[in-house]
């Protein structure tokens, strides 16, 4: 077993275990802390896949911002004197949910491993427009792909994403504002 496989298996086991803790814990603050482990381990998977920029963004946005946001929401919605803060649904509903999610997972794994989709040949290229020769540095390559005005790039989706973020921020302020 080479080093990459070893790292992958360690990260994968910790990742799945932390995700199970997030789902299974009765105390929701512990769930939120296990969520940090999930995000950090996913960042390790991204590093393993040569996606350095997304690994850093994952740490910054998920492990930093989103977790803090969730912890603040937990703090503001704490119900005094309640021991089980993270209640589950009824046992029947839990069994149904377990069956549903297992079936979905088996379907995805089937499609990815043994179905004919997994073995089919890659599609023929149908790309329009010139592609700049991208550097091997991941951050520079992503920067060119997101902003380049002359070559094939994702400028328009990027601008739309910025508008989405702006609307979300303004909407969050409006929704959570105290009414006079």
């Amino acid at each position: 077993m080479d080093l990459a496989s070893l790292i992958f298996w360690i990260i994968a086991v910790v990742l799945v275990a932390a995700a199970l803790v997030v789902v299974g814990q009765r105390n929701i603050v512990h769930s939120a802390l296990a969520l940090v482990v999930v995000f950090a381990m996913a960042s390790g998977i991204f590093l393993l896949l040569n996606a350095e920029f997304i690994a850093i963004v994952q740490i910054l946005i998920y492990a930093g911002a989103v977790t803090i946001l969730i912890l603040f929401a937990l703090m503001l919605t704490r119900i005094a004197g309640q021991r089980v803060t993270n209640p589950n649904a009824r046992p029947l509903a839990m069994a149904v949910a377990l069956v549903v999610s297992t079936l979905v997972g088996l379907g995805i794994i089937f499609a990815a491993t043994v179905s004919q989709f997994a073995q089919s040949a890659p599609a023929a290229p149908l790309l329009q427009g010139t592609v700049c020769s991208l550097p091997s540095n991941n951050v520079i390559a992503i920067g060119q792909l997101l902003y380049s005005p002359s070559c094939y790039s994702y400028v328009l989706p990027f601008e739309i994403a910025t508008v989405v973020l702006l609307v979300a921020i303004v909407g969050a302020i409006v929704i959570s504002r105290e009414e006079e």
Partner: protein
Amino acid sequence: MGLTLTHFVVLGAVLFCIGLYGALTKRNAVAILMSIEIMLNAVNITLIAFSFFNHVKPYANLLTGQIFAIFIITVAAAEAALALAMIIAIYRKRQTVDVGEIDMLKW
């Protein structure tokens, strides 16, 4: 035994299912949001794995999976901010975050 695309896709599928189970069973709205974040992360892992194992010539340079993952992270951040604002607003009105009791839209 080297790493293949299947390793990462199966890892993503397992993680997605854990998140799906949590989103279906939890009663606390914040816990449902956390499960949805796990599902989004699973999708990101799958997309970046596809990007890494893609060797079709013009597409391999485009890092399409990584670009998609960036947009998913953007939308997930916006979604988290909005959902938590809504949860806090609902808590202020109803003193609960139990999704079984939040039934203002139920007729």
